[in-house]
């Protein structure tokens, strides 16, 4: 990969970094970014055929672990969400649920042409064309399907972006939540909601921007229903153990 300058892939306007008042931040923030870029956990959400390129990438042939990247089993413990292949409208809901469960900072990589622009399913009524309409994407790896070398290159690009503090797409989800939610509602209908409180999290991270709240989030607030809690009559393992 010599002679290839790593260029950040810009999918939208970058969010300016938070103002830091602590003078040590100048030292520790780049150090933290470096450490973060060397320890990444992949959640490979295998939506489509591109997932077959991941076993060789992860296992001994290309061995992604030498870059400090490992597969991980749950979204809550993962840093990178790999979307490998076509995204059906039904699947997108599950991707969003996984994505919102992940803890920030989190990164999204769209693998295969299908995540870029629908790929060979461009005419299909059932697949989503542009993944970054619905959640922010850090790196796209085009190809049908990209070979493990390309996947590695994409991962290296992401590492470079993290190291230099440019991989801030996850902040965009909080900053412009209304925009993303609007696109999701256009596809899933007005009753769409997820169990994660994105606005609350945006407040927590200090990322409540001008476009976080808007008409779409207002609609969400109106229809929002509390999560189901097990009632007395329903069997639940927890209530059972408490009684005994």
């Amino acid at each position: 990969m010599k002679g290839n300058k790593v260029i950040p892939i810009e999918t939208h306007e970058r969010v300016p970094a938070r103002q830091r008042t602590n003078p040590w931040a100048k030292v520790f923030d780049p150090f933290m970014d470096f450490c973060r870029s060397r320890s990444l956990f992949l959640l490979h959400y295998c939506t489509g055929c591109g997932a077959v390129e991941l076993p060789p990438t992860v296992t001994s042939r290309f061995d992604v672990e030498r870059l400090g990247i490992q597969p991980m089993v749950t979204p809550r413990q993962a840093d990178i969400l790999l979307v490998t292949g076509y995204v059906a409208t039904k699947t997108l809901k599950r991707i969003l649920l996984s994505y919102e469960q992940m803890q920030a900072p989190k990164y999204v990589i769209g693998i295969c042409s299908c995540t870029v622009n629908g790929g060979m399913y461009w005419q299909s009524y059932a697949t989503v064309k542009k993944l970054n309409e619905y959640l922010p994407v850090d790196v796209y790896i085009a190809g049908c399907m990209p070979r493990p070398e390309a996947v590695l290159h994409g991962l290296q690009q992401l590492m470079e972006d993290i190291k230099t503090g440019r991989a801030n797409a996850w902040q965009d989800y909080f900053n412009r939540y209304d925009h993303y939610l609007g696109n999701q509602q256009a596809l899933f209908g007005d009753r769409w909601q997820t169990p994660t409180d994105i606005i609350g999290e945006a407040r927590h991270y200090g990322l409540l921007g001008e476009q976080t709240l808007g008409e779409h989030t207002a609609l969400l607030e109106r229809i929002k229903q509390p999560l189901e809690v097990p009632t007395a009559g329903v069997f639940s393992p927890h209530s059972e153990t408490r009684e005994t």
Partner: protein
Amino acid sequence: MSESKAISHRLDDVLKEIEGVRYTRQSKTRIRVDLDADALPTLLELLQGRAGYVHLSAITCVDWIDADQFELIYHVWSYEDKALVSAHIRISRDPGRYVSVYDIYTPAAFFERDIHEMFGVYFEGAPDMEKFILTEWDGPPPMRKEFDTERYVNETFAWQEYNPEWLREISAQGGGIAVKPSEGAL
């Protein structure tokens, strides 16, 4: 040898028993049968009960929009004959209703439910005509010919810009190819 001959005779007997059946042997293992829609349940019952065609592989639906008809094709397989009989019928497209063959072949429930979802054909007597795969779809049945998929896609989804600024930057350094073929393999 004589046994397999006896089996194919059984198939011939069954096919001759029903009036208005036209059949062609396309190969040793494939027989195409064309018949009226009313006669199909009888044929399937005879094929299953008397000729050993016990396995319903699939039900296909074809939308002939110009003829205003749906074609339903029932593929049944015999493990003894090692042959596939495809029974073709045509039904009118407008009400789009037909009888279920669930009582003859149980797996038909899935195929009929799928066809109902994709083409809107209603099967009377089927155990379940609810949504099957497209649980979150509320548009028209998408495999019908009058449903313009391309128009729907253009109305619903946004397209990626074909040649954005950032891509030009990447193409300038070799189209994002990490290792050029001339530089050899990894």
